[in-house]
């Protein structure tokens, strides 16, 4: 090869001694441009080139493995990013579904509450009406059987008081129900705004 150079005999001996005593060899591209007349040093250079070549092959293999691992990591990172985007979307959908379910539950609860209130009102009013009608019939019967009796007067007073109480109670029930309904609606509106 062009541009090769030779070491002096002493330098060659120094390198050979260094190898024999400490196992240290020359390495790298410099080996390719060393020329020699000594058989011993030629052998040394050949073995050093072989060792250097082995080291380079090993390093090349390791570097490739690292390159492959890096590529794999990059691929996995891209997959992770894509998964994160999907997860975020799924989370947002789940949040939306949760809010919708909560709204539905709230509506259902309100509906059940109003139905219950409606039933209570109906039953209470029916009872009031039934008591009112029954007592009125009893008073009419008492009037027609013995209208001038002091007992009939007593029944009349009692009927009058009872009817008053029944009317007061019925208005009180209706008032309470209306109040509860108004309060529930206000709360619902407040929650919707929040």
């Amino acid at each position: 090869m062009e541009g090769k150079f030779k070491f002096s005999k002493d330098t060659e001996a120094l390198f050979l001694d260094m190898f024999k005593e400490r196992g240290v060899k020359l390495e790298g591209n410099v080996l390719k441009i060393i020329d020699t007349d000594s058989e011993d040093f030629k052998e040394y250079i050949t073995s050093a080139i072989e060792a250097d070549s082995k080291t380079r092959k090993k390093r090349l293999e390791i570097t490739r493995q690292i390159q492959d691992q890096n590529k794999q990591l990059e691929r996995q990172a891209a997959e992770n990013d894509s998964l994160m985007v999907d997860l975020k979307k799924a989370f947002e959908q789940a949040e939306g579904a949760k809010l919708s379910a909560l709204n539905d539950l709230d509506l259902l609860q309100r509906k059940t509450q109003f139905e219950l209130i409606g039933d209570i009102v109906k039953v209470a009013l029916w009872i009031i009406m039934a008591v009112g009608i029954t007592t009125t019939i009893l008073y009419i019967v008492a009037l027609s059987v013995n209208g001038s009796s002091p007992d009939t007067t007593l029944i009349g007073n009692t009927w009058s008081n009872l009817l008053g109480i029944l009317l007061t109670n019925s208005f009180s029930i209706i008032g309470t129900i209306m109040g509860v309904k108004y309060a529930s609606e206000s709360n619902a509106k407040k929650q919707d705004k929040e």
Partner: protein
Amino acid sequence: MIKSILLVDDENLFHLVFEDACSLLDITLDLRSLTSSDEAAKLFSEWQTRPSGKPECVFVDLNIVGSSFDGIELIKKINYEYGNGVVVGIISSSADKSEIEKSKLAGAQFWIVKSDDIEPRLEAFKKDYEGYKKRSADFKVYKF
């Protein structure tokens, strides 16, 4: 053997692969590696007045992350701004036909596709090198 090579590639690991492959295949004894096209352009600008250290052959990556311009632009600059006189081509993992055409127009002489097994391609390139140096070889893509 090629007297001196300059590699411009943003991937440091590939510098090691290229260096070892060049050494094992006896392609060159003098290899310099850079990670940016800006740095390479600066050196070529300096070599216009002081050509000492100017490489004989330049391998340029197509996409050089972190640089102001890509490999094709660098080849254009080398050929049309900083004076020719070097064998220059692309070394890239891409084999995109339109990019290959663009590189040809920019004055690239070869395109080597990077892969796990780069040595056979570099060996084939080594055989064709004299043709590139004499400007007698046609543009070639080293893919298989």
